[in-house]
């Protein structure tokens, strides 16, 4: 008898899980940067799922409470196919096998790469806007980016050199979106003396040989950040240190607007 009751309870519980049928159609995005574009360009009703990355503090480029309103997937083909989406926004960093599975199963896929310039990011905004059927919203976003770029034009001709740390001792370097934003906000490239072809670790000894005017970092009190500050001060260098949040580092698109605002703010604080 007890067993029968238990199985009824189990059946009811399972039925409860199924109470909300899986909706089909709509758009699924499997990459945090695509999530951000999708959330900005498409009406919420058309978004079937976003990536789980956008629902995590360390990876998201959108407010967490917004991201958590949507279904999240881990970006496996199974989860995505089960939702039968009209469109999948995938990234060139997704596993080749996953992208191949989408194609094999006949899903419409837009693969986004990682834009390395402002212009490339604007082109990506337009491409996503066209794919989700909201070209006007895309143009509006591009106009906002352009306005942000224009309004953070540097106040003078000085180009204080800046080092932007992404995590720990890992410094941004080489031609990429962040470098272009730093340049357009009126900073000089602090990694130039080191000849770094792309982002990578930069030791404090190296920094002491060519100290920058400004250090930007997401976590000034972390292990690397605190030692760096301590040693630079001991060596008698006056380096301006500013927090540059992680959420502004990961993506282009609408993030550019927020990132340029922050960079402009920091640049205005650098004395002539």
């Amino acid at each position: 008898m007890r067993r029968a009751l238990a199985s009824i309870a189990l059946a009811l519980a399972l039925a409860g899980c199924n109470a909300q049928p899986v909706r089909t159609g709509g758009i699924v995005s499997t990459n945090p940067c695509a999530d951000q574009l999708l959330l900005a360009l498409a009406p919420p009703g058309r978004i079937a799922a976003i990536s789980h990355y956008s629902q995590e503090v360390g990876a998201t480029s959108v407010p967490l409470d917004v991201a958590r309103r949507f279904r999240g997937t881990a970006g496996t083909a199974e989860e995505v196919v089960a939702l039968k989406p009209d469109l999948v926004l995938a990234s060139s960093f997704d596993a080749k096998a996953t992208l191949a599975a989408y194609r094999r199963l006949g899903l419409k896929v837009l693969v986004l790469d990682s834009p390395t310039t402002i212009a490339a990011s604007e082109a990506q905004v337009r491409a996503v806007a066209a794919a989700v059927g909201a070209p006007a919203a895309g143009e509006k976003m591009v106009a906002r980016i352009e306005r942000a770029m224009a309004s953070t034009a540097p106040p003078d001709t000085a180009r204080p050199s800046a080092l932007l740390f992404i995590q720990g001792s890992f410094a941004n370097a080489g031609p990429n979106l962040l470098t272009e934003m730093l340049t357009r906000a009126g900073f000089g490239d602090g990694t130039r003396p080191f000849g770094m072809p792309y982002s990578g670790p930069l030791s404090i000894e190296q920094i002491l040989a060519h100290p920058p005017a400004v250090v930007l970092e997401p976590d000034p009190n972390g292990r690397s950040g605190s030692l760096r500050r301590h040693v630079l001060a001991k060596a008698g260098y006056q380096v301006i240190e500013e927090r540059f949040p992680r959420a502004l580092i990961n993506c282009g698109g609408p993030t550019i607007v927020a990132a340029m605002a922050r960079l402009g703010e920091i640049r205005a604080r650098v004395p002539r």
Partner: protein
Amino acid sequence: MNRHTRLALLIALVVAAFALSLAAGKQWLPWAAWIGDDSRWAIVVELRVPRAILGAMLGAALGLSGAVLQGYLRNPLADPTVIGVSSCAALGAVASIVFGLGGMAGGLGQFGWAMAGAGGAMALLGLLTARAESPVIFVLAGTVLASLAGALTAFLISIAPNPYAVAEAIDWLMGALTDRGTNDVMLAAPFMVGGSLVLMTTGRALDALALGEDAARSLGANLARLRWTVVLGTGLAVGAGVAVTGVVGFVGLVVPHLLRPVFGARPSALLLPSALGGAALTLAADSLCRLAPGAGEVRLGVVMALIGAPFFLALLFREGGRQWR
């Protein structure tokens, strides 16, 4: 040449390697930087001195625990990695990087997590081997613990929230002394020195054990206590080392083999020389890391394997495994 002369030579080698470690780098420091008012003085005091001290302590801890474990397990393949303490400490540190917990109190968080990993490994190892006296159980338990920790580390890296956390975790796993400050030395030194002192007490019991377990027992060696001493000493010394520098291999394996032809195969005669040899080798390898061309430094764990492996193979080839027959 008697033992004292050989030891004195080894000490001279450590001093020379220490001096090289202070002077070598992306910028060679001229004499002017050492005296008087020079901004490069900060490089010496804040970066190179702590780095050299850590390098010497790490090398000594690794060399010493390698010698103890090779004696204890009577197995030429033994080194600190086989008992799983380094892997578990690494797991703790990677967890703190992936979950972003290392930022607390200027890196104290990461050290604490790594030490918690090392402590957990020591406790597990103690429990697992509590009822078995044989070193074979010890090495089996340690090996399984190491591969479990390795798998969990890989799992954590695979669920990392962003590529930069992955880069930092992997970078850390390769082991390095780059940008270690006085704080790191203060954190790690008590454990590393304490653990090494504990390990130094094992000499007599190891000598007895070299004759076989039964002979050792009849000579009055307490094998259960020896096992606890080995777990505690290696756990503290190597765990704290891994907690501040990441995983550096090969020192514990290679150094006792390099020194056995010079100081003899008796385990107790190898302990102090292995600590000194480990310190010299690590300091020299760390200086090489910084001299690599290009923007960055080569990771210490990588350099150690690059110089350790050929050395070791040459030794095997020359000796034909003579010492172990």
